[in-house]
């Protein structure tokens, strides 16, 4: 994808376009919370976020939450944290565990959907659901980001309107944990791809 047009836009011009757009984020963990914050700082008009989970202390090594927020629902808390950054951004919160029917119902009017789950089976489920039921909506997936270092392994692969961000190989394990730097790289890459799509549409 060419980035020439983007480089030629002022932030004011970028905001004028993205403030009319809606981004759906499925999951508010390491990928979802960091991606949402990057999009919020860019001035996205509306973010729709869903997550059933609550914040635990072990999440704070990579997720955009604070110690005093432990125990709270991630989707509602992300909504609070985005409000502190920009109170004008509209946020729709769904504190539920997403299944195929929910994904279609909640995200059907989005301009772009971000996959931000941690489990591989959930990643497969959302790809199959969106590509079958909502094939016109671009879907940006994160796959392979555990561990540290090896920055150049994180890349973007585009297959029509399916975008894969990550190294597509490093699985989370005891000695390759999910850590803020690489999870943040993938989350911000997802936000960057979303921005590129939105500015071109």
């Amino acid at each position, binding site marked *: 994808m060419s980035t020439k047009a983007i480089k030629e836009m002022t932030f004011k011009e970028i905001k004028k376009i993205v403030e009319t757009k809606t981004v759906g984020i499925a999951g508010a963990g390491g990928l979802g919370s960091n991606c949402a914050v990057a999009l919020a700082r860019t001035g996205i008009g509306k973010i729709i976020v869903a997550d059933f989970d609550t914040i635990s202390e072990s999440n704070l090594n990579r997720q955009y939450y604070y110690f005093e927020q432990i125990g709270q629902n991630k989707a509602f808390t992300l909504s609070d944290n985005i409000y502190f950054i920009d109170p004008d951004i509209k946020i729709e919160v769904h504190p539920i565990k997403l299944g195929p029917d929910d994904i279609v119902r909640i995200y059907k009017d989005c301009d772009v959907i971000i996959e931000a789950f941690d489990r591989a089976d959930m990643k497969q489920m959302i790809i199959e659901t969106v590509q079958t039921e909502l094939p016109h909506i671009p879907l940006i997936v994160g796959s392979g*980001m555990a561990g540290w270092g090896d920055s150049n392994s994180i890349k973007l692969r585009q297959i*029509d309107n399916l975008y894969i961000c990550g190294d597509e190989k490093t699985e989370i394990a005891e000695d390759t944990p999910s850590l803020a730097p690489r999870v943040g790289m993938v989350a911000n890459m997802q936000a960057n791809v979303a921005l590129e799509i939105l500015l071109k549409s």
Partner: protein
Amino acid sequence: MEITLNNRPEIVDKNVLSIQELIELKNFTFKLLVTKLNGTLVKKDQRKSVTIKDGDKVDVIHLISGG
């Protein structure tokens, strides 16, 4: 026949091949995969019946836990 697999040209020594056979031939052992043929999603239960022709574009995506 010659196909494009994950954006790279690939010569397969067969005339008829299902998506499932290609996965086995290439030794893609990951449990969780998403497969696409010429941009269209091929679900897991369709992989044995959907066949690949000369010139087709096949994408196999590995889904990895973490996020």
